[in-house]
Every structure is written in C-alpha cells, then in structure tokens.
C-alpha cells in the first residue's frame, strides 16, 4: 500500500516537473498539458501582452552579466518569461531606451510578465501534484 502510494507520488512529481518546465518555457503550456484550456490561453495572453508591450516600449532586458544584485534580480524576473526572454533580442531590435519614462515602464512590464509566469508555473505544478484543481 505504502509502495503504491509512493509510486503514485513519484509519477505525479515527474509529471509536475515536466509541466513546470513546459510552463516556464512557454507561458500556459503547463496548463495546456493538464488540459486546462482556458487557463492556458489566459496565462499565455497575460504574460505575452505584458512582455511584448514591455519590449515595444523599449524596456531594459537584464542579462546574467549584470554588475550588481539588482541587475541579477532583474535578470531572474525577466528569465521567468521563458521563450519571450529568449526572443527578446530579436523583438527588441532597437535596443532599450530608458531615457524616456515609457522605456522605464517597459522594463517593469517585462519583469512583471516574468514574475506572473512563475506564479502560473507554480499553479500548474500544484495542479499536477493534485494539491489544487
């Protein structure tokens, strides 16, 4: 009985890991794998809207080579957007411009998109583990 339960939890843990990684890479994909269609679409649109607007406003996208702790925090937040971070250099072809207020808003919107996606990843992980519906 205990072994069966352990196997079930192990399977859930593996699925939860796959779902979490997928959800991080492509916002909403974790929920899509769990057949939560509406949530998958809403999370993709929410993260995508914030990330693309942040890039369109020419916000600053932090890299791992930042000089201080705040740059590193910004990098971790930005990295949360998954694929949007990876293609940000292509989309943001003009480079960042934080000399205008809009550029600064863009920096915050992109970081918000990353943190929001991490919340969505956590939600998908908890659903896969059976702790949420």
């Amino acid at each position, binding site marked *: 009985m205990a072994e069966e339960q352990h196997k079930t939890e192990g399977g859930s843990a593996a699925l939860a890991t796959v779902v979490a990684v997928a959800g991080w890479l492509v916002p909403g994909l974790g929920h899509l794998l769990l057949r939560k269609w509406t*949530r998958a679409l809403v999370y993709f649109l929410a993260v995508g*809207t*914030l990330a693309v*607007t942040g890039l*369109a406003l020419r916000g600053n996208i932090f890299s791992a080579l930042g000089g201080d702790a705040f740059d590193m925090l910004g990098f971790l937040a930005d990295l949360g957007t998954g694929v949007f971070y990876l293609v940000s250099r292509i989309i943001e072809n003009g480079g960042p411009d934080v000399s*205008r207020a*809009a550029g600064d808003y863009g920096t915050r919107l992109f970081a*918000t998109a990353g943190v929001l996606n991490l919340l*969505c990843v956590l939600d998908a992980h908890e659903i896969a583990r059976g702790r949420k519906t």
Partner: protein
Amino acid sequence: MNLNHFQTMLLFAVVISVAFAFLTKRKLSERARYALWTFLAFLLVAVAIGWLMYPLSR
C-alpha cells in the same frame, strides 16, 4: 510605441486582475467579481496615491 503613465497602469491593472482571478478562483462568477474588484482597487489606490503625492511635485 509610446504609452503614458495612466495607459500603462490601466494595461497592468487589467492583465494582472484577470490573471489573478484565474489563479485564485475557479468559478466564472467568482472570477468576474474578483477581477472587477481587483481592477477597481488598482485604479483607486493609484489615483489616491497620485493625489497624495501631488503637493510634493509643486
């Protein structure tokens, strides 16, 4: 692309309200109520803080 502060705040409030509603509520009616309430709270607090800071800008 250029957005002013208020337009950016509106976009932020709409997106975050809807996302939080889906993250925390499961029924459609609960989600709608939560999203509307959170959106209005974002607006109200932002405008209130704006007016509180207004004398400092002069």
